[in-house]
């Protein structure tokens, strides 16, 4: 069970996989148990995965734990990366699955179905010109979204991923991604400009 599968590089993978070729090269070296390559990958992914996982699970300590678990999967099973998608899609998908499992251990409900129905607690327009306040509103609005909504928002805006890639990572239909984004934006925009700017 703990035995590693033998690290043999798949000859099919000599063709450049889609996505960042540097990251695919790192994976190839990791298959050969190259610790330096793994450390490089860790440092490359730590900031991105930390941010991503803080949206999936609430508690920073659990996010850290999931992050380490994710990278241990990469270390132990790098040969499972088949080059069919970007390295980042593969790693984020592992992190998301592990994050979901961890989330079930947390108190938070899996999906916040009522998020759209609750009034936003964004302050009135008199505060809207204060940049720090805008940021504060936005963070509190993000905080009120369900994990899934928040995750889609951050994958789109911060990680600059397309809806198909997000659907792959979250293992859901593309329409679900679009719908989550649609609902999330409506609430976030309200936070951005206050109740007066109810654009949607």
């Amino acid at each position, binding site marked *: 069970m703990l035995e590693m599968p033998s690290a043999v590089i798949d000859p099919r993978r000599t063709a450049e996989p889609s996505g960042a070729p540097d990251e695919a090269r790192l994976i190839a070296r990791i298959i050969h148990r190259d610790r330096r390559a793994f*450390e490089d990958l860790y440092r490359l992914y730590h*900031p991105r995965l930390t941010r991503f996982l803080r949206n999936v699970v609430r508690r920073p300590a659990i996010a850290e734990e999931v992050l380490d678990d994710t990278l241990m999967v990469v270390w132990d099973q790098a040969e499972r990366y088949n080059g069919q998608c970007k390295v980042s899609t593969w790693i984020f998908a592992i992190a998301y699955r592990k994050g979901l499992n961890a989330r079930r251990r947390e108190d938070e409900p899996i999906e916040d179905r009522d998020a759209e129905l609750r009034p936003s607690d964004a302050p009135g327009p008199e505060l809207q010109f204060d940049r720090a306040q805008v940021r504060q509103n936005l963070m509190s609005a993000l905080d009120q979204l369900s994990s899934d909504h928040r995750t889609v928002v951050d994958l789109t805006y911060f990680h600059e991923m397309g809806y198909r890639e997000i659907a792959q990572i979250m293992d859901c239909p593309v329409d679900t991604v679009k*719908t989550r984004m649609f609902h999330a934006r409506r609430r976030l925009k309200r936070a*951005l400009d206050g109740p007066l700017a109810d654009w949607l």
Partner: protein
Amino acid sequence: MAKIIALRDTPHQAVEALLPWYVGGTLDADDRAAVEAHLQACPDCQAALNLERRLCLEVAALPSDGRPDWSRLQRRMAGRAVRRRASGAFAGMAGAWRAAPSWLGWALAAQAALLAVFGALALPVSSPAYHALSAPPAPLVGNIIVIFRPETRERDLRAALLTNHARLVDGPTASDAYVLNTPAAERAAILTRLRARADVVLAEPINAGATP
């Protein structure tokens, strides 16, 4: 699933739903063409696009925190290395190790004492300063992994390291293993000496810094 709005009822709704990825530049050519064609004719979507850009910038600018802790992951890797070897050629030894219930129950006090010993040696490989530097000095590389019997006294443990010119790189790991750095030329001899000790459960070579 949450309530699904029919995003594709009209071109307007379909395009509106795509605006976040239009702003992010991740749409494929067909989607992008559809968005651009609709934008020219729809003032609502033009206005929504402006707000979309602001939202994207604001969210992307939100701070993210968390510091990498490579040493923590290294400890887990060292634990894996031990288990891998234990499940293979050294199955007999590992069997003995698993059979000893005291092993898992190694008292926290004993661990704290060991940590104190190694703290005194002051040889951690990964200091916070190391992580903060973009061009770090070459780290101390572990080339031996060793597991002592749980009842081993700290004096004996220290002696085992000192007499073998071994420096502590990491440990105790989750599986109570220690990663040591020894002079490469002496490694084989040191391994033999360690394995001969009654208080050593397992001593194995590792190639922590190996590159292909």
